[in-house]
């Protein structure tokens, strides 16, 4: 086994070991075999290509190019076979995109959906190429740890509990294997180690002293790295755990609004929750998992709130007075096993929750948060909630808001400046509730706004500005904009995240999928507390108390009736429409420039595919084209000299071009040309290395070499270049004919001479010893002399 092959095996092994860090992220699956196949393919391709003495920058590219058919074949087998076609590439892209959606939809460990598997295989294959390139092609094992580290650290950051020590050990071992292989390779370059007479039998590398020492150090380091964290209390979590037996004061939750768009676009619509409820109006049975109460200009965030023990019943809702009617609703909710949410989805104003596990209560948002990695996955819990039903009058006549809620009124100044005119225009005058209801109507029913989940996610100032500009968005933008506008009007507001009511099943239960994810604004009115609004068109149901609010602003009158005829989906309906149906139903759909209809998409895809293919082909063909250009230039110089008798040019240039061209052809065919070889030696050697039947080849070679020799060393350059071009062609044909097919192919497509570095170091100065003389008199003296010669 050569050292390079050993390195290639070590690199493949290291990538395989480090890939094990991906295992805790997904539940098994067939992707492992595909990823291993990709690693093997990369290693084999690399070794094969390196044997052909291809220039180093191209090896990695070739590996990537070989990977493409493999990935297409393995991941989208139904499409087109191994050849990349626009269809298969699009299918592959879709698969990756679906994988991205899946990844955002599932917390680890996720099921190995085809998309996730595709991403994993692609990532592993790419890392394999990187590791192989760095460690084997460029023979630098240590930096090859970087791609491995990247492969390790992403799962390490994602896995909730961190990766286990076994995975760490395997990944560390992978790096050690790589380093040991390189160390062995480097040491063996010095020769065979001297071994005592008795040690003849020990032939494996691990038994050699140096390897033993290095291996011991590496294993000891790994062991220390694994053992020390186990015995030393290091992380803050651990300390907190010990101090507080009841549970955490603070729980870091992932802001659910971040993943909202992906959940909405999730093509699979994974089923997350089912529930049964006795609510009289099931279409207002929203489930909440977060309340985002802080807006910093960039995004809505949940603020840190104190957590308390879960009591039964829970504290009364903030601001709710007994005068407001509230129905008691009993529900039973079951969460799917694939829904590792650490906030318990609850209907608004839950008062009693019967749930197992470690949960903590947050009063401000009325949320139950899982402590110590408690999630809702697989839970089944009963909730008693108050379906608060304030009347219009109660809300309209709501008193001033208590000052402790002032933090719910904060708006960044620039946003207040840019939005207040519009807000006041659309909200009109009247009580805060009337203003809010008009805003809701403007958003949901005026028809000015279009629901589209394909726009970039975001709820910050920029997103709101864009939203007000384009009037296209989804619940995230609708909710956050309305919440901001409410704040501008002086109404405390926040954005709640959760789910719209699910779809009723045959057995009477409701099913909630990931596409039911939703965000909506909650506004605070004294006497009633937090009240839900629904500004998003075509989603959810507007609350009953906002249905009959008259609109005082005349401008909003006309559009408010328009949607009811042109956009039926904009009317509040208990059932949800599918997203694409909503889109197609919109009259304004065609106006959107970014909108991609089917025909255009196909054409664009084809064009992009063709363009990419063209660029790849051009890149691959660039060396060949460059080589061909150089050859034509040289041969052209030869024939030009014949045509116009030199034309004032030095025929020596053309002759040397012929010689260099012949040598470059030989280089392309894998002949190594030493700098200490003279033209006639080279001519003799080339004639030997490319045996031909006739003598034409060797004679042509000799003629070229002799001419070059005269140009280089004789006092007078040969004045004729006649026939040299033909000789060059003869030599090239003969050399190509005498080479095996593979060599010929390489000479054509990857000509080594194109990649040859031009020597310009001390060596070059040494070689061009006459340069000083040439510089000295080449300026005008030479020209004068030539003119004289031609005059005679």
């Amino acid at each position, binding site marked *: 086994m050569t050292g390079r092959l050993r390195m290639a095996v070590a690199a493949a092994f290291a990538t395989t070991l480090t890939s094990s860090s991906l295992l805790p992220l997904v539940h098994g699956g067939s992707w492992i075999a595909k990823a291993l196949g990709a690693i093997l393919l990369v290693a084999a391709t690399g070794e094969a290509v390196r044997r052909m003495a291809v220039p180093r920058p191209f090896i990695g590219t070739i590996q990537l190019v070989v990977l493409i058919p493999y990935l297409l074949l393995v991941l989208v087998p139904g499409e087109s076979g191994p050849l990349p076609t626009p269809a298969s590439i699009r299918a592959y892209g879709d698969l990756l995109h679906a994988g991205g959606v899946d990844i955002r939809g599932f917390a680890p460990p996720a099921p190995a959906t085809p998309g996730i598997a595709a991403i994993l295989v692609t990532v592993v294959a790419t890392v394999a190429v990187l590791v192989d390139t760095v460690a084997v092609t460029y023979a630098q094992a240590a930096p090859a740890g970087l791609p491995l580290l990247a492969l390790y650290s992403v799962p390490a950051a994602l896995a909730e509990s961190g990766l286990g020590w076994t995975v760490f050990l395997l990944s560390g071992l992978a790096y050690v294997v790589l380093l040991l292989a390189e160390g062995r390779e480097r040491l063996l370059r010095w020769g065979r180690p001297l071994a005592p007479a008795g040690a003849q039998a020990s032939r494996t590398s691990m038994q050699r002293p140096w390897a033993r020492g290095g291996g011991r150090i590496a294993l000891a380091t790994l062991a220390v790295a694994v053992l020390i964290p186990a015995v030393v209390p290091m992380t803050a979590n651990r300390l907190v755990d010990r101090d507080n037996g009841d549970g955490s004061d603070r729980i870091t939750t992932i802001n659910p609004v971040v993943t909202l768009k992906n959940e909405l676009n999730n093509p699979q619509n994974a089923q997350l929750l089912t529930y049964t409820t006795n609510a009289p109006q099931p279409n207002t049975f929203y489930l909440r998992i977060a309340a985002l109460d802080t807006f910093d200009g960039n995004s809505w965030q949940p603020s840190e709130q104190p957590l308390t023990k879960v009591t039964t019943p829970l504290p009364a809702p903030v601001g709710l007075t007994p005068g407001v009617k509230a129905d008691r609703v009993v529900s039973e909710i079951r969460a799917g096993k694939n829904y590792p949410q650490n906030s318990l989805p609850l209907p608004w104003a839950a008062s009693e929750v019967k749930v197992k596990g470690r949960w903590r209560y947050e009063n401000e948002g009325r949320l139950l948060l899982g402590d110590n990695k408690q999630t809702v996955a697989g839970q089944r819990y009963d909730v008693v909630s108050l379906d608060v039903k304030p009347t219009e009058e109660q809300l309209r006549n709501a008193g001033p808001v208590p000052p402790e809620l002032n933090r719910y009124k904060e708006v960044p100044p620039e946003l207040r400046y840019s939005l207040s005119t519009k807000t006041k225009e659309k909200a009109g005058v009247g009580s805060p509730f009337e203003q809010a209801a008009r805003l809701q109507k403007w958003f949901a029913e005026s028809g000015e706004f279009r629901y589209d989940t394909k726009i970039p996610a975001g709820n910050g100032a920029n997103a709101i500005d864009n939203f007000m500009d384009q009037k296209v968005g989804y619940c995230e933008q609708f909710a956050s904009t309305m919440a901001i506008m409410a704040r501008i009007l002086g109404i405390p507001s926040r954005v709640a995240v959760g789910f719209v009511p699910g779809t009723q099943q045959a057995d009477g239960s409701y099913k909630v999928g990931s596409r039911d994810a939703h965000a909506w604004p909650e506004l605070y009115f004294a006497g009633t507390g937090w009240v839900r609004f629904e500004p998003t068109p075509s989603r959810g149901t507007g609350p009953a108390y906002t249905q009959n609010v008259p609109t005082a602003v005349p401008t909003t009158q006309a559009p408010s009736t328009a949607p009811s005829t042109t956009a039926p989906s904009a009317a509040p309906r208990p059932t949800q429409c599918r997203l694409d149906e909503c889109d197609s139903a919109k009259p304004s759909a065609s106006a959107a420039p970014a909108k991609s209809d089917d025909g255009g998409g196909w054409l664009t895809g084809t064009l992009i595919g063709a363009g990419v293919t063209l660029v790849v082909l051009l890149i691959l063909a660039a060396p060949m084209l460059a080589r061909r250009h150089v050859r034509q230039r040289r041969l052209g110089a030869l024939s030009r000299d014949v045509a116009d008798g030199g034309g004032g040019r030095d025929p020596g240039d053309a002759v040397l071009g012929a010689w260099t061209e012949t040598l470059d052809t030989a280089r392309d065919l894998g002949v190594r040309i030493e700098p200490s*070889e*003279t033209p*006639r030696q080279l001519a003799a050697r080339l004639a030997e290395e490319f045996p031909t039947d006739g003598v034409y080849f060797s004679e042509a070679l000799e003629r070229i070499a002799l001419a070059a020799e005269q140009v280089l*060393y004789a*006092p007078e350059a040969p004045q004729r270049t006649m026939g040299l071009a033909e000789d060059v062609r003869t030599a090239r044909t003969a050399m190509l004919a005498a080479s095996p097919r593979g060599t010929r192919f390489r000479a054509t497509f990857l000509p080594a001479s194109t990649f040859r570095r*031009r020597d310009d170091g001390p060596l070059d100065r040494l070689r061009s010893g006459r340069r000083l003389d040439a*510089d000295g008199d080449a300026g005008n003296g030479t020209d004068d002399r030539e003119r004289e010669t031609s005059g005679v």
Partner: protein
Amino acid sequence: MSTFNDQAGLKELVATATRIRGAMESVIEGKPEVVRLALTVLLAEGHLLVEDVPGVGKTMLAKSLARSVDCSVRRVQFTPDLLPSDITGVSVYDQERREFEFKPGAIFANIVVGDEINRASPKTQSALLECMAERQVTVDGTTYELQSPFMVIATQNPVEMEGTYPLPEAQRDRFMARVSMGYPSPEAELEMLGVHGTGSPLDSLDPVADARDIVKLIEAVREVHVSPGVARYAVDLVNATRNSAELRLGASPRATLHLIRAARAAAALDNRNYVLPDDLQALAVPVLAHRLLPTAEAQMSRRSVEQVVLDLVRLVPVPGGQDGRPQQQAAARPAPAPVPNPVRAAAPAPRQPTMQAPQPGYAAQPGYGGHPAPYAQPQQHQPQQQPYPDQSGHYGGAPTGPFYGNGHGPAR
């Protein structure tokens, strides 16, 4: 431009040289490359050191060359009791005329064959120093020019070391080339039996050229063009010997000079009026190897000086061989004046260090043509010599007197 004359001179040269070679090869069978080298050295105004085991025809080579050219030939058998004055000549007192009269020594000839040169004492060997480098003899304060052509062909036996005095570095540096005969092939040996069985082939050897012819040839050789790139290549080659880790003593600037001169002669013998790097490569071992001293490490790893030189030849890049560079042909254009040879302008050679330990035997046989001799002699055949403590002092044996010239230009 004397291109036409050059060509004519070259043709004449080749014709004459072919005749001489033919004559010599009728005596020395199966050794065309040795004969060629001898002729090259003659045309390059150098001196030849023939070194080999006894009985392979060293003396025969020297004598055949001398006999082929109709010129004065003297033969000196070097013995331990040979005195410097035997070589240079002596002033004797003429009682009748009451003045000293100079009796020329053996050196006053066109071709001097010095047989077994290492048998003479260093004092006597050193008597040759001035003669060889400056082509003049100084006796009792009077300098006598030597005739042209002048060539010393010395032979020595590297194996039998009893009672010999290895040549000092300074002496060896004055030889342009060292050649070893090597055993003849079986066929050549058989042929030799047939010819030599009846009588000495030297007897039937008639001169095919005379001294004036040779002088003309030498003039023609001097006209051979050395492009600056090739000159640079020669300097690089010699420089490489000075920088090699395996060589204790590199070649002198005189070696560069000799290399270029020999290459000119070789090119002329090839009917070429310009020198190729090939000429330098082929001559590198014969011209350079005998001047170099290997380091102890190289000796211990049994690398002969010849191998080291060959490796250097393989390392030093040839000017423009692989890459036709535009700037490299600037000097290839017709030059208005004889191309200045940068080597001739080289700094005067420092006196060669003479304190070096004598070369411990001649491990391998140099072969002409850049290939190690096929029968490299095992090192253990030569008993390791003790340095001769009194050797460095023997420059006193050299003729003293006014020091004319700097000793580096060819005597013209």
